[in-house]
């Protein structure tokens, strides 16, 4: 066997070997049993303090790793669920590892603000005490970060504890660099904590301030939900007016299309008004109510 033949044979072995490896990997993947939930949600090996101690000078990088693992953990569960779920309502996903992951990320790098935001947005639906504890820990480590007060205020607001939310917004508003609306939020919480306009203000600020695209997206979807609630109230009023005038509820949207056009509601080809996600609203002529369509991306809860 001369040199050329030997080289060609080796190259052939390498190429065939790589192809065989890829094929075998696909074969094994197709036959791999589903991963047990108890394995994917197995407790972390290291608690936060031990992880910090063992990280030597690499605590920032280790915090990044725990942060990205938190995002992947939540993302994977959302994908597996395959439904239209909101980031702030993931209680059905059994995210048992999220709190320890965020705890490790924030202990390794206490100045890393994004995990606190994630804890404030995602954790309350799973473990509200942990969400409050982690956010308070963030405030202790970063006493001048007004955004953490915004996050803590948001958790209290979600729990309908408007007095606590007002107090937190008030403390945050006193910090140097805090925006003026923090002070306004305090007053709004105290006066009308449960109102739709307060919710709109909260999600508008969250959408403006967040650096996390997922949180921004969640806030924007919540704003769309609020818009849709307003729109449904308006449509309901129109239907009631029609019912009073004609003596019955319209059988379909076409019947009130001229009225919809006068209020400049966007409608589709069949005359149905569109929700903020672009899907047509459904008219229930038996009860004279308006509901979201099946294609709608608007959060229901």
């Amino acid at each position, binding site marked *: 066997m001369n040199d050329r033949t030997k080289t060609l044979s080796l190259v052939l072995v390498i190429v065939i070997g790589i192809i065989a490896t890829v094929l075998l990997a696909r074969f094994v993947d197709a036959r791999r049993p589903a991963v047990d939930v108890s394995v994917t949600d197995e407790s972390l090996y290291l608690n936060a303090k031990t992880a910090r*101690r063992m990280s*030597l000078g690499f605590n*920032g990088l280790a915090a990044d790793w725990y942060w990205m693992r938190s995002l992947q953990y939540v993302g994977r569960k959302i994908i597996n669920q395959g439904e239209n779920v909101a980031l702030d309502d993931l209680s059905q996903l059994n995210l048992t590892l999220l709190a320890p992951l965020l705890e490790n990320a924030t202990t390794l790098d206490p100045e890393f603000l994004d995990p606190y935001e994630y804890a404030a947005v995602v954790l309350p639906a799973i473990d509200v005490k942990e969400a409050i504890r982690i956010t308070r820990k963030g405030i202790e480590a970063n006493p001048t970060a007004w955004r953490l007060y915004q996050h803590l205020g948001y958790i209290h607001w979600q729990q309908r504890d408007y007095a606590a939310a007002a107090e937190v917004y008030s403390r945050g508003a006193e910090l140097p660099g805090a925006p003026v609306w923090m002070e306004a939020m305090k007053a709004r919480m105290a006066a009308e904590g449960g109102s739709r306009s307060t919710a709109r203000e909260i999600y508008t600020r969250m959408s403006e301030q967040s650096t996390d695209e997922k949180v921004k997206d969640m806030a924007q979807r919540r704003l769309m939900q609020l818009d849709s609630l307003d729109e449904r109230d308006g449509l309901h009023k129109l239907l009631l007016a029609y019912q009073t005038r004609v003596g019955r509820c319209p059988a379909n949207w076409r019947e009130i299309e001229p009225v919809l056009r006068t209020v400049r509601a966007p409608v589709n080809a069949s005359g149905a008004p569109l929700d903020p996600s672009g899907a047509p609203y459904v008219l229930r002529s038996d009860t004279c109510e308006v509901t979201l369509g099946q294609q709608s991306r608007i959060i229901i809860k």
Partner: protein
Amino acid sequence: MDRTLFRIIAIARNAFREAVRDRVLYNLVLFVLLLTAAAIFIGELSGGQERKIIVDLGLSAMLLFGVFIAIFVGVGLVYKEIERRTIYAIFAKPVGRGEFLVGKYLGLCLTLFVNVVVMGLGVSLALLYVSRGWDPLIVNLWPAVLLIYLELMIVTGVALLFSSFSSPALSALLTFFVFIIGHFSADLKSLSVSMGSTAARWLFAGLYYLLPNLANYSFITPTAHGHAPSAGFIAATAAYALVYITVILAMATLVFSRRNFK
């Protein structure tokens, strides 16, 4: 004095050339690949934290790669010359053992300097890429790079000290231990205060002051948040490194001068 300096520079230059010939700087290729991959893909995974992660990853890799070079090249600096018997040719000339050690040390420090500067430029470029333009973190980056370099200089000195009397494998292991314990200096200090027995307190206090306090050179995480160390802090840590290295090299010279190569 001039001749001593000349000889040290000649040995340092040679040590640097040898490191380049040994393809030590090839680690830069790996570093560039790592950063390029991070800059392109990390945005998808990090939830908008690309800049922080680029700095954490870049500076951590700089420290890790640098420590590996300092340990594995550092422990072989003297040993290779003895094994190849080239040390006889060197000492046949008017070269002192101290000059030889200092020259070797400076040669490896020069290699590490080139390494960290290129890596620092790599991190800066990655930041320019992910920020789509100028990023103030690029300015904050360089004091942290300097602190990493000072830490690597200390680790190189420790590796050289161990290699002056021990085998390369043992020297590498001991240097690695010193690197790890050097980052636990805060724990050593608290143990020196909190232990019950006086002997234990003295032991931990002794270890705290004898072993290099490498935790002082860890400024990676604050840098990723846009903080820079003060000039006073950098000057103090640089003075500490200078004094510590001088002591280590003096010890290494003392041990090495007593070695019999016959």
